[in-house]
């Protein structure tokens, strides 16, 4: 119940913000009868109605993960973020090895398995993706090769 109420409230705020932002859309000189703002207004309105319906008639609460699991999800998100921003400057091999190692550790907490998974996946996937499929990946980025 509470989860849905909070969710509905958040969505209602976002929907209001969305409608408010839509009022700032410029109108061109050669506008059609509907214009650039109407459809965003409609969408914002539908979202607002849905949010109210969810607040009024919430579903039972889901089983939220416990703290350690939330911790694992946060760690994974941070690792993925770091992977995303380091791919260009550092290249594929090292970030991929670290990221897959850490994700592997989240599922099976063994340092040896994680290290082997990270190193193995990074090298194997690099060869498959780069040389068999021809994706534009650099093994090492500019930061390392200068």
């Amino acid at each position, binding site marked *: 119940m509470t989860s849905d109420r909070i969710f509905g409230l958040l969505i209602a705020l976002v929907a209001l913000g969305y409608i408010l932002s839509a009022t700032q859309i410029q109108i061109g000189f050669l506008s059609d009868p509907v214009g650039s703002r109407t459809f965003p207004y409609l969408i914002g309105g539908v979202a607002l109605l849905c949010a109210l319906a969810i607040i009024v008639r919430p579903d039972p609460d889901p089983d939220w993960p416990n703290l350690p699991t939330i911790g694992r999800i946060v760690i994974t*998100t941070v690792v993925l973020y770091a992977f995303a921003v380091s791919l260009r400057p550092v290249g594929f091999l090292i970030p991929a090895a670290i990221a897959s190692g850490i994700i592997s550790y*989240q599922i099976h907490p063994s340092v040896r398995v994680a290290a082997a998974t990270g190193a193995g996946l990074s090298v194997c996937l690099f060869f498959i993706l780069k040389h068999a499929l021809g994706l534009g990946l650099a093994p090492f980025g500019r930061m390392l090769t200068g």
Partner: protein
Amino acid sequence: MELLASLSQGFAVALTPMTLLLAVSGCFIGTIIGSLPGLGPSNGVAILIPLAFALGLEATNALVLMTSVYYGAMYGGRISSILLNIPGDEPALMTTLDGYPMARQGRAADALVLSGVASFVGAFLATVGLMLMAPVLARVAYLFGPSEYFALYLLAFCTLGGMSSSNQAKSALSAAIGLGIAMIGLDNQTGIPRLTFGELHLMDGIDFLVAIVGLFAVAEVFVYIESHGRGSALGVKLGRITIPFRDIANSAGTMLRATGIGFIAGVLPGAGASLGSFLAYMAEKSVARDKDSFGTGNPRGVAAPEAGNNAAAGGALVPMLTLGVPGSGTTAVLLALLLTLNITPGPLLFDERPEVVWGLIAALLISNFVLLVMNVPMVRLFVKLLSVPPWLLLPGITMVSFSGIYSLSGSSFDLILMIAFGLLGYVLRKLDVPTVPIILGILLGNNMEDSLRRAMVISDGDWTYLFSSGISIGLWAAAIIGFIAPMFLRNLLKKPTGH
């Protein structure tokens, strides 16, 4: 005669070595994806689309590859249902009811062969149905103007959440989120930026592939981490594979009935394969003389849902190709592929790019035979793959998803956006908000708005024009019924059990 000429043109395209190779690899990869628990056809196709695009495949070949993956995943979904009691994907849920009990009785191999044959019957006949029905529907679609298209999009949004969510407000919200995201970027008609907040990266709008891979693949990573990688199949053993001729002969009628039901469920917007397998199973149970044996390992309870869901998979391609409105989650992802390849689905596709449509249909007919071979004599290979440990599988999927998106755009911004979509998808899934309507909203949002604006230009701002033709009134009525009906039907369809 025209049909035969078109089909032979299709086979001329499909029988080139490159296309054949792609169809076979697609079937193989798809069966693997389908059989791995948790990784269904929509996730699988979503992860692979950026790769297919990065390969620089020509349109028909890319489409053949991905639809073969789609069909393969539908076949493969049954493997973990039967062996582990964990559906490989949602449509394979019904197969657990009788498939797992059969496996417990030591008849796992029989159940796999029987369901493989049922999948073949369903998918093959549905492909034939696609071939016969799509050109007819494409002709009807010629009668559609902007007001009809607007109503059609509305119908898709009203029904797509339908059966999969337990709360219609949440389905509608999900569609609104997708449509809202679609509005970001330059306005198609005036070129004025909307809702970009001055961010240059948002001028082109949000790439739907980023949203799809985020909502499906990255969210799956979080779900997996939460479930702690349960459902790995280390140590599953399979006996000698023989062909259970008697079971197959006994379920021949079952397969045909289930195919018919599944195909219709697939063609209807929003229903998709899960409903196809559900209805096929329930129908079979209700006509059976030995009702009580359903749920305890009745071979017909294995054949019916498998024929049903595979037929629905083929049926769902009909509205996707002819109207540009997908009938299921995976076909929504396939629509994203078409749009990325600059192919506009719809009636014109059949006239302007016949080689794409007929090449695809011919390739699917061939794929079905390939899949029959892979899923009956070679099924042991895929059972072995079930034991790939999640600590290896999951980081692998993550790296492939990221590399695929990165190789398309080369931008870290897109990757970060993808992670955000992943988190959003995870939270929405926890809250029981379906994510497929978001994808559909992002894909169709601009088209839907364009139809509305064009209709208003034609009618000079008269909103009653939206209800001015018989077709559009029919579509509006179907949309409203489709939105309201699940609220009443849900009690009837609640939690199917095998008893």
